[in-house]
């Protein structure tokens, strides 16, 4: 307990004596740190999940769409497959429909392309060329409805009036979740022909997914596709990823702004607490100075007090942030959006902690300046 000791003791006792105000200040700092921490954790997880989803969704490096909803001719598939550097062309039909009364995405693929559409079979398997009115349902939907292989489900296209019974041949995790980036929903995979029939678009598909021999040739292949089909819309996986990350960055930026407002409020809260402490202790500061305490010692007392509040707020904020991030992650997952992993990056935790301490120190600067300017004679004269 040398010169730092008395200052620390004074600061700690002061916090104890002013429990309620100190607790409110710690909570204000904690809320700022918690929102920052939670946001960074969720953001990191979201980016990773988005990257994974985009990779899964766009199994090929290029997606070729027509001008309308389902107007890419099947003849184009062979032609696209014959383009240089294209290793595989996969026709896909995407339609909306109702399965057991629930709105679902119906994905029409060829039997030979099921390896791209299904990530993992939980039960049963795929369908063949000769199978008719068969469906592969998503595992979560099957579990929710108590469905299993062999059960019959009723599927009705969104724009049609006729419903058809389909036999479940597989329960699986769907890999090709084309709409995952923008929509909540369940997927069901049906044979390509049946999807076309539902839309009354025999011979046409929604898009063609192109697998390339080398991903770096995506721009070249795009030019080739556009030279053959000038009115086609061609998207590369990289472009989609960039667009997705731009959206995530935008949302991140907005959330960060809100967090910064929270942190600013925390800074003002801490500043107010320290300022009121300085006012309340004006006489004691004068006494300290009269006894011979140097100015830096007085500054140390209140900087330490702010630092302790910052440390407590930082620690509480980290815990609340991680809990909040986990809650947000589960909320997102339960809504059927991304399955966001909980990635706790030590850098984020350190940054949040530093932010708490630095902001508390910044908030104490003005009050400390006021404390250092107290003239002992002026205060003590007022006795």
């Amino acid at each position, binding site marked *: 307990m040398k010169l730092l000791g008395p200052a620390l003791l004074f600061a700690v006792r002061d916090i104890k004596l002013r429990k309620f105000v100190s607790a409110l200040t710690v909570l204000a700092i904690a809320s700022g740190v918690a929102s920052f921490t939670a946001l960074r954790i969720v953001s990191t997880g979201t980016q990773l999940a988005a990257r994974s989803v985009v990779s899964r969704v766009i199994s090929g490096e290029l997606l070729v769409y027509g001008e309308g909803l389902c107007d890419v001719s099947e003849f184009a598939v062979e032609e696209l497959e014959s383009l240089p550097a294209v290793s595989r062309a996969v026709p896909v039909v995407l339609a909306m429909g109702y399965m057991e009364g629930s709105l679902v995405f119906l994905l029409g693929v060829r039997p030979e392309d099921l390896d791209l559409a299904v990530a993992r079979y939980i039960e049963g398997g795929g369908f063949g060329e000769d199978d008719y009115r068969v469906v592969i349902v998503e595992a979560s939907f099957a579990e929710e409805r108590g469905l299993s292989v062999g059960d019959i489900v009723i599927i009705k296209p969104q724009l049609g009036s006729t419903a058809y019974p389909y036999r479940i041949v597989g329960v699986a995790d769907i890999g090709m979740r084309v709409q995952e980036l923008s929509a909540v929903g369940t997927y069901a995979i049906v044979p390509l022909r049946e999807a076309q029939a539902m839309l009354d678009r025999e011979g046409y598909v929604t898009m063609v997914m192109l697998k390339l021999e080398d991903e770096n040739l995506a721009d070249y292949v795009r030019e080739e596709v556009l030279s053959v089909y000038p009115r086609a819309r061609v998207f590369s996986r990289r472009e989609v990823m960039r667009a997705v990350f731009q959206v995530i960055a935008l949302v991140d930026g907005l959330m960060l702004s809100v967090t910064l407002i929270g942190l600013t409020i925390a800074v003002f809260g801490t500043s107010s607490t320290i300022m009121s402490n300085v006012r309340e202790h004006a006489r004691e500061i004068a006494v300290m100075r009269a006894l011979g*305490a140097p100015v830096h010692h007085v500054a140390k007392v209140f900087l330490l007090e702010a630092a302790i509040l910052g440390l407590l707020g930082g620690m509480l904020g980290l815990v609340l942030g991680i809990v909040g991030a986990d809650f947000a992650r589960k909320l997102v997952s339960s809504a059927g959006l991304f399955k966001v992993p909980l990635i706790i990056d030590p850098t984020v935790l350190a940054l949040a902690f530093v932010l708490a301490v630095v902001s508390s120190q910044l908030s104490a600067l003005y009050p400390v300046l006021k404390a250092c300017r107290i003239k*002992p004679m002026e205060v003590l004269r007022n006795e």
Partner: protein
Amino acid sequence: MSDAVRLENVWKVYGDGPSRAVVLKGVDLRVEYGELVVIMGPSGSGKSTLLGIIGTLDRPSTGRVYVAGVEVTSMDEDELAAFRLAHVGFVFQDHNLLRNFTALENVMYPMLLTRRYTYEEAKEKALELLRLVGLERVADRFPSQLSGGQRQRVAIARALANDPDIVLMDEPTGNLDIDSAAKVASLVKWLNQVYGQTFLIVTHNPELATLATRLLYIRGGRIYEKPPESVLSKKLVEEVRNSELRTRIRNSQLRLLEVELRALRRLVAQGRIPRCETEARLSLLRNRANKLLQVAARSGRDRLVIDSA
């Protein structure tokens, strides 16, 4: 014996222009080591300012101040703080203990500030000082848990912590009951006689004068060896003799009497006041009028005619 404190022609002026106030007017003062000097003076006489300047909390406008043989007037703030820590002890009227510290920690605090003592040494010395002032049993109590007298004795122990050349006390018994004040005063006397500690006490309490080895008086910013003529009574005589003021007051009295008489006449005319009360009021007004007439007659001016109601 050398001087613990020496002031040479110290002036202190606050403000300038119309708000200029000269608080100390060329004060010369010497306090030798081992003395217990009591400076008595009424409020506003400049005694706290004098104590602040000796304690290096304030600077004189002109003049020189020596404490423990060192001229302190040219030191900067940090040097002054370090100087106070080593050479000056303070006891304030309102004890001014640090409320976040216990009695023991309050006494340890100045020692720890010097960095000369380890924590254990500071604690040992602080306990001994508390024992000296008879408070070792309450060492772990906070100021809020102590009586006024106990707080003031802790403040004395704190003032002695760094073996100061001089202990400055500002109204040390000002906020104490008579028993506590007696304990504090006897402790100060004992510390001076047995311990040899030099004290300079400023107060307006004449009872503390009995402690002094030397008694001084302060009036209107000047130090006197003997009680100066009472400034208050002198002022009073001047005010009473002020003819302009007397005339102003008398004229006001006359106007007030006229208003009273007018109101009384109206009430009688309207029959709204009983006769006995009319008589009583008239009697009162007549007395006041006669008093004014006597004063006016003495001064040879102003005649007063009172209508009979």
